[in-house]
């Protein structure tokens, strides 16, 4: 006779037994049998197919293998990987989605991202990267040189994402989708260049209607970081004036005229001179002032150029359009805004306040 108070325990045990037998959990995960993946790389394959590839297994002391398949659908690729590998690939740890630039230029990456986004197993913080060149070759080559290259790549992106380090534009799939759907914003994605030995940051790609339309590089990418992305740059190097500014913080004020015919963009920069290779004697006040003025003019020119190319392509990654939103009036449609944006006059005004690291002689 079982004591009365043990009925509950008995019930639980028998329930567990029943559950165990009929198993409502279809997916069983033994830790030895799964291989989490850190990235998918998607490239154009033959005949309109995708070529997707990944590296398995990450973070386990075991020789890594590079898997690559040509498929019609993204998820199909994941499935086919399972069938050629002895572990089951799990996407719960997916951290990066690398998309080949050719594919991005063609458009339609929204669908790829959506596939990842709607999967509850996958976090929404998957980083999105555009790759120029052959990433597969790079990662295959790295297999022999350095272990865990996939994981280190992720750490790099994570480092630059956190606290807006101000070197790269880092975007995750949620941010991309939010921008894509907002009528007055256009998404950005960082572009990396890959070859056999290197994988390095190139700049920021601007997307319009789900298509990559332009990439900013070097100085214009640095300006873009200041204008929109991080408002901070660790180093702003201007080779033309032989000067490097350090720890540059920007303060942006945008003002649209009421009929949307002109935009005045005021950029306040604060930073310090960290390097100077030029001829001027910046230890005295006058040449320094002059140099600062030169920097201002140079940056103003560069910025206007960047904005003009954005206008030409009718893309608005700086979210200038959102400045047209007002609390009490109707918002512009995307078409209306782009019409205004394309013809807008832009006044760029830089105001630079920099500290030289050495004492400036004062004119007495």
């Amino acid at each position, binding site marked *: 006779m079982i004591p009365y108070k043990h009925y509950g325990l008995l019930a639980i045990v028998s329930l567990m037994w029943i559950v165990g037998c009929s198993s409502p959990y279809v997916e069983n995960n033994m830790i030895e049998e799964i291989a989490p993946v850190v990235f998918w790389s998607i490239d154009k394959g033959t005949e309109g197919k995708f070529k997707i590839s990944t590296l398995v297994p990450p973070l386990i002391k075991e020789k890594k293998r590079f898997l690559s398949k040509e498929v019609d659908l993204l998820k199909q690729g994941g499935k086919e990987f399972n069938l050629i590998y002895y572990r089951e690939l799990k996407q719960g740890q997916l951290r990066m989605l690398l998309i080949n630039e050719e594919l991005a230029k063609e458009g339609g990456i929204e669908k790829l991202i959506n596939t990842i986004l709607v999967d509850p197993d996958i976090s929404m913080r998957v980083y999105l990267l555009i790759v120029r060149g052959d990433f597969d070759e790079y990662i295959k080559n790295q297999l022999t040189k350095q272990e865990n290259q996939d994981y280190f790549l992720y750490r790099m992106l994570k480092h630059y994402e956190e606290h807006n380090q101000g070197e790269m534009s880092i975007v995750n799939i949620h941010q991309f989708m939010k921008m894509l*759907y907002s009528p007055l914003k256009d998404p950005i994605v960082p572009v990396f260049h890959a070859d056999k030995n290197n994988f390095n940051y190139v700049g920021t790609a601007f997307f319009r209607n789900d298509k990559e339309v332009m990439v900013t590089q070097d100085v214009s990418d640095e300006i873009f970081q200041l204008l929109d992305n991080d408002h901070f740059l660790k180093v702003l190097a201007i080779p033309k004036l032989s000067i490097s500014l350090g720890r540059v913080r920007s303060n942006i004020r945008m003002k649209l005229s009421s009929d949307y015919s002109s935009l005045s963009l005021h950029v306040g920069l604060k930073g310090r001179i960290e390097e100077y290779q030029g001829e001027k004697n910046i230890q005295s006040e006058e040449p320094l002032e002059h140099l600062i003025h030169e920097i201002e003019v140079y940056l103003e020119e560069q910025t206007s150029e960047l904005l003009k190319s954005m206008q030409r392509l009718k893309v608005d990654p700086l979210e200038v359009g959102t400045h047209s939103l007002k609390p009490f009036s109707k918002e512009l449609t995307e078409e209306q805004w782009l019409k205004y944006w394309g013809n807008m006059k832009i006044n760029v005004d830089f105001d630079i306040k920099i500290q030289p690291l050495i004492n400036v002689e004062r004119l007495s």
Partner: protein
Amino acid sequence: MKTLSLFNQTFTLGGIHFLLLVNRTQMHYFILIMPVYLVHSYMVWGIVALGLLSQLNLMMLCKWFTSSYAKRGYQGIVQLFGKRTVQVFAIFGFLIILLKISIITLGYVEMLHNFIYPSMNKKWLIFFILSISLFVASHGMEKTLRFVVIAFFCGAWILIMFIPFFFPPIANYRDLYPLIPTEWSGQSWQGLLFIWSAFSGPVYLVFMVPWLSSNQKISKYLVIGNMLTIIEYSLLFIATVLFYGSNFLNKINFPVVYMGRYIQTSGLERIDYILISFHMFNYVFDISILLLCFYGAGRVFMKKMNARTTRIGLLSSWFVILISIIIMDQWLWQTVPGQKMLLNIQIWLGAIIYLLVPTILFTVVKRKESM
């Protein structure tokens, strides 16, 4: 074996319980899908406006709570309406509660199914959650009402998790513009109806009056509880608009849960598992309260008010609910139009009940008192 006495009353619960009850009964399935119905940022004014209207409604209910009829429970209601009418009401109530439990459970189960157990058979989930509710309900009305404290403390903190969404980088305050509606469509009306329906939870408190104290100061707690709900609704809604932007928002089926997924700490990654699990306390509370109401309504129309409550009675009402949920799941919930229809029925029913019940009770009590 002890006999089951579900509806015994040994003491009354005070004002704080009232506050929590009002607040928790308003925070159920609807809150999780609300942003999809509202979409535009200016609908936050809808939340505030209807919240204030709901305030008025609660004041009317207060008249009932403090009346002498309420204290007498079932007898009081019979005195007001007569036995026949009460029976008719009970039949209606029976069906309405059945529908409400079913939709709440289906909604929550769908969420569990989507996010935590995608490969599991849904019927198991339905069975489990109903079993837990049965367990809570079998402790009787009194303890179930006290369970609200647990439900509150397990649910209210979730809001804190969403505070980071108010701060950049994803948030852009210009996403909230325009602040006033520039165009108004059928969808906006439906949004308002939806909010009103979401506020309708406290209607079921009408039947729990005997366990709640009915002193004159009740109204204060009702108002605070409702205020809390308004704050919770609008915070969650604004957070979702900031997170998704209006255009992306209506493409997402469970915006609040997806936002939970976005939260990440270095130690724990799937915060949404925790949030969804804690949210279960709220559902269990809601379902068990409704289960008891359901059983009560059944007793009224079967004219068994004077008989003792039995295990068989509670279990059979539980089975009725289980079967109804499984049938609904099988036939309606799994198809998109069916699901839409069920939700629409629930929205309309909730809204109508919340409009009618307080007004009817208020006028009837007023008339009887003046007579």
